[in-house]
Structures are given as structure tokens and as C-alpha cells.
């Protein structure tokens, strides 16, 4: 091959990433499949780190790491109750880089759950679930898709948790599926459908394996693709609302000729761009390639580097082989469910069914309960929003610690020793108190400010801190027999055989 031809191929590979002109930049996006998701130009406001902290990107990269490590692990792990634990031990000791694959997969799983929560917090606090006034976007629907992705992430993590088939896995899933059984009427049926029987055994393992490796990944990638497509369809990150407002002050909006795309042809109306007054010019925007692509590349590389780096220092535990006859003390669900498990300790119905349902439903309904449209894209919306956020944090802190104190110092069964009705204790317990206190706060703030947004901010911030405190309590402050231990108190040593 002559030097000339080689240059040609090289040029062909490189030009979308290093465009020589704005036109080339735009063509590059359209011509390259890997770039097709990006728009031609991106507003400087969207590009800024503070707009999104790139949390969505980081989460997606972590999902890709999980998929890649997961596929390799599928060659090395055997989903049979006789062989699963053995294959895990071999991964840890006898497979070259098996330890790395395992640690990377596990740390990425935990990171992803944390990241989807952080991403949700960011989207809420910047009000990016709001449809906007200038152009009616479908961001509320995209928020609902996002909450679904949160649930899918938790399900993926939960199904994967069983696969090592050690004591931690077996009993965490025992606890988790027993929480599911707390649903009235159909709870036991749900539990048996998940387990493939009445006890946790081979049918359970293969069910969780297929869900974890095939069905849930397919669904999560489909919903994630829809989620990202919706962002493009809505014109980009919500902060572009500020670009639109600014554009309105410059010149009147003119409709742009544009095609309308939809997923299954169901969408009605015209595509957002047609009515979008945003004029992205040289002052307020840059071509996506290379400016956004380089940032995405940077964020991805840092995410991968940090993930691998963490894998070098954080070990992946593997406890003793699963033993249905021996319950470890304490027996805990995965960390993201420990807040629930703590509340289930007060009442299985409240903590296992009602509170999670209200939380998921409540989250999904946020964009429909709060229809104010100001300050979209700004953290906490504005000054008062920040103040109500702080109020929410403090209120959440005080009430959660208060309900915890009641649970520890004044258990309901001690206060009402003569009442035998289980239903009474399902209604009167610290979890219900917390729920009522938060609901009360929402309405109080709403009344005082007449703003659904401020009330939402306060309640959401209270929810964040309650989630953090309850999870921390379940993780670090509950020891054997679910007794309370301060962080400086040592847990009693575990007896061993020799």
C-alpha cells in the first residue's frame, strides 16, 4: 500500500472526530453511527459540567463495563447449585484475572446503583423533569422512563446478588423475597413465581441467572435507548430552556422545516425542533464533534480508570457456601434495600409494601404534581428553592433520627403490650410516622409558599436524607440479632470451628 492510500484510509477514519469545518462537523455526526446520537451543535450551557455533572454518561459507561465483564463472566460461571460456588472460587483463585473480572463487575454494580440515584437527584434538583413553556417537550414522560430504569437497575443488581450462591447471596435473597411476600393477597404467589418453587433452590438460581444475563439487560438497554432518544427529541438537556428563553429575546421564532420521527409511529404532533426558537450560533454553542465527543471520551476514560483502580483495592467477598440450615447473624439484604429492611423491622406491610410503592409512585408522579415551569435547569431553581432544600434536609434529618429513636427506645409492642392485632402495629409504627411527617411537611410548605416546586424540593431533600440515614443504619449500625451498635462499638466476635 502506498503512502497515499494509507493516508486516505486514515483520513476516512479520523475526519468525523477532527472536522476541519463546521459543515464537516455536522456531516460527521450524521455519517458515523457511533456519533449519531449527538446533535449537530450543542449549547455551551449543556456542555458545562455543572449542568449535569455528566452523571447520565457515567452511569451508561458503568453499564457498558458491567455488560463487557458480565459477558466474559458468563463463560466462567456455572449457574447450578452444585457448581456455582466452585466456579466462583476458581474465578477468585485459578482463573487468570478472574479476581479482576469479579471485582470490577461487583464494584461497577454497586457504583451503578449509587449513580442512578445521584443522577435522579441531579435531574430532580435541576427541575429537568419539567416540560417547559416555550416548546411542549415530553420530559415528564422521560422522567417516568428514568424511574423505570432505576427499578430495572435495582432488579438487575438483586438478581445478580444470588449468583455467587454463598451465605450472603442465599440469605439476602431469602430476606428480599420474603419482603416481596408481604404484599397482601398475591404476595406469596409472587414469591413462589420468583423462586420457581417454595424454597430457594436450583429453579431460583436459573431464573435469576436468565433474568440477570438475558431478559433484564435486553429490557434495560431498550428502555435506556428510548430514554436517550427522548432527550434528543426534546431538544437536549433541560438547561436548553434557558437558551430558548434567551433566543426569544433576540428575534422572533420561525418554524423550521424538519422531519418528525417517532418510535412506533405513535407520537403525535410535530417534532420539537420545528417550534424550537433556539438558534444555536457561534456564540452560544459549539459543534458536538469534537467538543462534546472529547468530553464524553474524557468522562468515559476516567470512569473506566476509576473503576479499575477501585477494583485493585476493594476486594469482592465470598462467604461460606450457601447453607439453608444455618442463618448468618445478622442476615442482611443488599445495601440499597437495607433502608427497607430497617423499616420492615417495624412493619413488614409498611416497610416492604406500602412505603416502596408510595416512593416509586410518588417519584413517577413528581412531574405531574409540580407543573411550575420556572428556573428549568438551575439547581434548586432559585434562592428560595435552595433555602427550602436546606429546610428539607434538616427536617428529614430530625424526623428520621426521631423515628429511629422511637424504634430503638420505645418499641410499639412495648408501649401497647395488651394489643394483639397485627394490623394495629402495621398502622402504628415509626415507618408510618415518617411517612405521615413527610406528607404533612409537603402540604405545609405548599400552603406556605403556594409553590408545588418548593414543596417538592423540600420533600425530595427530606427523602434523600432519610434514604441515606436508614441505609446507613441498616448497613453499619445493626449487628447480630439486629441489635443497635454505635459505629465505635465492636460487634461480638463470630465463633468459628477451630
Amino acid at each position: 500500500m502506498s503512502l497515499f492510500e494509507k493516508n486516505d484510509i486514515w483520513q476516512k477514519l479520523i475526519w468525523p472526530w477532527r472536522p476541519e469545518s463546521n459543515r464537516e462537523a455536522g456531516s460527521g455526526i450524521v455519517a458515523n453511527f457511533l456519533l449519531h446520537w449527538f446533535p449537530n451543535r450543542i449549547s455551551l450551557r449543556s456542555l458545562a459540567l455543572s449542568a449535569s455533572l455528566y452523571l447520565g454518561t457515567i452511569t451508561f459507561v458503568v453499564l457498558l463495563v458491567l455488560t463487557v465483564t458480565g459477558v466474559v463472566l458468563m463463560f466462567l460461571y456455572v449457574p447450578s447449585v452444585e457448581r456455582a460456588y466452585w466456579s466462583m472460587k476458581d474465578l477468585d483463585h485459578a482463573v487468570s484475572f478472574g479476581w479482576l473480572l469479579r471485582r470490577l463487575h461487583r464494584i461497577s454494580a454497586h457504583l451503578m446503583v449509587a449513580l442512578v440515584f445521584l443522577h435522579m437527584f441531579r435531574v430532580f434538583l435541576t427541575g429537568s423533569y419539567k416540560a417547559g413553556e416555550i416548546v411542549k417537550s415530553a420530559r415528564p414522560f422521560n422522567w417516568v422512563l428514568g424511574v423505570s430504569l432505576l427499578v430495572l437497575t435495582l432488579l438487575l443488581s438483586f438478581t445478580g446478588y444470588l449468583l455467587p450462591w454463598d451465605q450472603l447471596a442465599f440469605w439476602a435473597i431469602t430476606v428480599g423475597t420474603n419482603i416481596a411476600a408481604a404484599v397482601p393477597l398475591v404476595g406469596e404467589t409472587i414469591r413462589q413465581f420468583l423462586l420457581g418453587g417454595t424454597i430457594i433452590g436450583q429453579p431460583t438460581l436459573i431464573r435469576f441467572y436468565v433474568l440477570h444475563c438475558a431478559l433484564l439487560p435486553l429490557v434495560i438497554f431498550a428502555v435506556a435507548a428510548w430514554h436517550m432518544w427522548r432527550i434528543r427529541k426534546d431538544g437536549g438537556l433541560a438547561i436548553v430552556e434557558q437558551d430558548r428563553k434567551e433566543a426569544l429575546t433576540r428575534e422572533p421564532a420561525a418554524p423550521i422545516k424538519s422531519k418528525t420521527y417517532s418510535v412506533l409511529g405513535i407520537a403525535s404532533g410535530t417534532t420539537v425542533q420545528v417550534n424550537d426558537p433556539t438558534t444555536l450560533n457561534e456564540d452560544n454553542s459549539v459543534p458536538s464533534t469534537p467538543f462534546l465527543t472529547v468530553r464524553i471520551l474524557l468522562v468515559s476514560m476516567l470512569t473506566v480508570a476509576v473503576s479499575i483502580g477501585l477494583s485493585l483495592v476493594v476486594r469482592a467477598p465470598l462467604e461460606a457456601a450457601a447453607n439453608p440450615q444455618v442463618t448468618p447473624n445478622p442476615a442482611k439484604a443488599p445495601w440499597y434495600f437495607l433502608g427497607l429492611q430497617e423499616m420492615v423491622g417495624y412493619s413488614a406491610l409498611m416497610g416492604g409494601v406500602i412505603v416502596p410503592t408510595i416512593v416509586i409512585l410518588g417519584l413517577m408522579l413528581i412531574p405531574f404534581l409540580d407543573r411550575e415551569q420556572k428556573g428549568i435547569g438551575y439547581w434548586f431553581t432559585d434562592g428560595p428553592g435552595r433555602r427550602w432544600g436546606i429546610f428539607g434536609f434538616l427536617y428529614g434529618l430530625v424526623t428520621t433520627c426521631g423515628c429511629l429513636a422511637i424504634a430503638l427506645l420505645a418499641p410499639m409492642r412495648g408501649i401497647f403490650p395488651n394489643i394483639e392485632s397485627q394490623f394495629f402495629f402495621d398502622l402504628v409504627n415509626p415507618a408510618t410516622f415518617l411517612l405521615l411527617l413527610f406528607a404533612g411537611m409537603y402540604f405545609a410548605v405548599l400552603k406556605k409558599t403556594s409553590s408545588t416546586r418548593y414543596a417538592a424540593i423540600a420533600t425530595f431533600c427530606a427523602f434523600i436524607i432519610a434514604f441515606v440515614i436508614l441505609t446507613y443504619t441498616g448497613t453499619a449500625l445493626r449487628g447480630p440479632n439486629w441489635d443497635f451498635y454505635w459505629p465505635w462499638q465492636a460487634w461480638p466476635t463470630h465463633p468459628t470451628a477451630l
Partner: protein
Amino acid sequence: MASTDTVDNGVDPTRRGFLGRLTAAVAAIGALVAGWPLLRSLVPNVLYEPPKKFRIGTPESFQEGVTFLEKHRIFLFRDSSNYHAISGICTHLGCTVKFSAFPLPQEETVRQFTYRALGEFHCPCHGSKFRGEGTNYAGPAPRPLKSFHLELSRATGELVVDVATEVSRDFRLVV
């Protein structure tokens, strides 16, 4: 000949239209029919689990008082010729409870039921506590411990426990 222009409520009144709607309806039902086996196959008809009804030994082989059958997670109580079986699985989240014996057996009345209690049950996982006849009185457990049906095997005379059949807490098998 009626044309598709003459439609009322957007429904094509011709034979073609009717056949089309009928086909769509049949296809929809067909899809459900096709989907049913996919879902039903995931509900097991047979289970590779230990049998729900099993023999645990002759009545004489059990000592007076309480015996914990570790494999089955059941507490077997014997009071001379009266036998009853209480589940050792905590009703909260499924951990195995421990029996905490009293120094001396004592008469107890729980929910209008009087009996001789040898001890009570404590669950190590979240601190649930149960009286000697199974009633939950502390911790997060929502329901009392189950009592299981006991009978004598006609074939061998051994005690047979049936964990698929619950009985009330005053059930006693008199041998």
C-alpha cells in the same frame, strides 16, 4: 356495491370490513393463546424439594420435652403421650428461630389458651420473640409460628409431620 366511503363512526360496514375486524379479533385472541404456554411453562408442576409430608421417627424415640429437628427446622414437643410440632421458621423473614428454655416449665395463658410452657422462641435475625405456643410478642414478626399437622403412619407407626397442613396451636396428637 357499498364503498368504503360510507362509514359510520369510522367503521367499514362492508363484508370486507367485517372480515377484517373478525380477523383482527381472532389474531388478537391467537396472540393471547400463543402467549399463554410461554407464561404457564414458568409455573412449575413438579418441585425438586424435600417432601412436605415426612416421617420423623417413632413416638417412643423422642425424649420428653422439646427436640429440634435441624434438617426440617421443626420443634417436636412431647408431653408423655401428647405430641405437637411447631415450625422453627420465623414469620418475619425466614430465619431459623432458637428455643430458649425456661429453668422450670410454667403455666402460661396466651390469648385465652392455657398450657404448660417449657420455654419460648427467639429469632436471632431481627429480635422477634414468640411464646411457647407460637404467638409473636416482640420484634417485627407479623404472625405466630406455624403449627403443623401430626399423625401416625399406618405403615410403620412413626410420627408423620405435614408441613403443608397448618393446625391451631392447641392441636395435640395423642398416641
